[in-house]
């Protein structure tokens, strides 16, 4: 686990007078689940949206799989995005499409010369991973919140990405469904050797998922360590998350 697949250096982002990220540094290593922990509104979602290129930072460097994201043209950025999946907090399923069409959408986008049979096989494999094969022809509106989260997860997996960015994967879910999502995240990491950044303030999720935790406080990477290391910290700002 020593090759950095994401390297963030000196990242700065402000919205007006509000400095959200202030010389933020972080590295994600291959095969690890890195949780970014912080208060609501501290800039966690802004961080991962900068990584995937949805938000342009003001300053800094972001290297993803060896490439500087900020210097790529649109075509090059789209190639990187095939390898980096993003699970939105709101799931962002296309509500005018069935589950099958939602999963087929990224497959058809990347000019893969796949036969309909191969596409169907990949869709069913992704649904089997999340235990929702029976929903293949349903509409997102017909699904529960937990099912939608799992379908969104299936959609992130369909292109077998090397990196997955999770934006608060358990927010709004009941404890049982949250545990199911957590175990899916760990299963995905074990099965596909993905590297992940997980944005969360759900401490149960953090404890069960994180190899390392980065504390985002005042726009900076305030602390970095394992769950046990940070839990026993003498720093009040860190300990308040674990109490």
């Amino acid at each position, binding site marked *: 686990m020593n090759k950095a697949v994401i390297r963030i250096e000196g990242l700065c982002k402000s919205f007006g007078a509000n400095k959200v990220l202030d010389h933020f540094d972080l590295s994600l290593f291959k095969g690890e689940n890195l949780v970014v922990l912080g208060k609501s509104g501290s800039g966690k979602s802004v961080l991962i*949206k900068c990584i*995937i*290129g*949805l938000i342009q930072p003001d300053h800094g460097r972001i290297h993803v799989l060896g490439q500087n994201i900020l210097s790529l043209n*649109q075509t090059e950025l*789209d*190639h990187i*995005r*095939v390898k*980096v*999946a*993003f699970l*939105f907090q*709101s799931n*962002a*399923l*296309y*509500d*005018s499409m069935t589950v099958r069409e939602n999963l087929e*959408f*990224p497959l058809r*986008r*990347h000019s893969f010369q796949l036969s309909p049979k191969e596409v169907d096989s990949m869709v069913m494999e992704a649904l089997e991973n999340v235990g929702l094969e029976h929903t293949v022809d349903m509409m997102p509106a017909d699904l529960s919140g937990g099912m939608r989260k799992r379908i969104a997860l299936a959609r992130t997996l369909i292109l077998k990405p090397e990196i997955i960015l999770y934006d608060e994967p358990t927010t709004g879910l009941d404890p049982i469904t949250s545990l199911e999502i957590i175990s899916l995240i760990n299963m995905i990491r074990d099965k596909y050797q993905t590297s992940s950044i997980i944005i969360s303030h759900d401490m149960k999720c953090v404890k069960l998922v994180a190899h390392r935790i980065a504390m985002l406080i005042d726009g900076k990477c305030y602390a970095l360590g394992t769950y046990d290391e940070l839990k026993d910290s003498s720093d009040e700002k860190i300990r308040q998350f674990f109490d």
Partner: protein
Amino acid sequence: MSKILVPSDNFKSFLNEIGELSRFAMRFFREGFHPRFEWDEFIRQCYVIGYRSLPLVGLTAFIIGLVLTMQLRPTMVKYGIDVQIPAMVGIAIVREIGPILTALIFAGKIGSSIGAELGSMKVTEQIDAMEVSGTNPFKYLVVTRTMAAMLMLPVLVTLADGIALFGSFLGVNIYEALTFKLFFKKVFDNLEYIDVVPAFIKTYFFGFAVGIIGCFKGYYSQKGTEGVGLSANSSVVVSSVVIFLLDLIAVQIADLFQ
């Protein structure tokens, strides 16, 4: 500087919006003719925008043709020129009523639905999801819908004209017997290129206005249900105003060729 000369925030905001809309339209022309073309989505939008609008457009056109004829007839009879009803109605419908009325119905139905659809996609991060999956959401959503609107509105207007004239034919036959063949002969004998061609050309601009404005309002929708509702509503309002302005310009240009 006198306070009278200082532009208000609303005026600045209005000018800003015009600037942003112009940039959005320029982006359409920049990206719209560059591969890759989203043919599947374009064809689907032609069906949604064109075919599904046909019943409403057809019904409205029929009623307008019928009502126009029934309203005109008393005055025409009074002056003894009721034989000219097919010609007059034909010119009015083909030149102006058909294109404008169809475009306004189109703005109401399609402009609002595009504004609401893209607005709700924006607030639920579906557009962002499209972008991170390596799809150009502008091409997939905006270019397809605007091009479909530009293609379908002239088709709908042509059909609406025909249906309105049929309505007029029925309106004439309420009071006197006039054969179908004779009615339409009178219509087409009095129609010239200057009546048909400018009217047809301006429908492409109407379609573009409805498509691009609906997409713009939805693409930059503010968050929340109120934002989506505002996008849908303002798509219709702005499209309608722009249609009238374009019509005014079209009439002036057509006049030069009279």
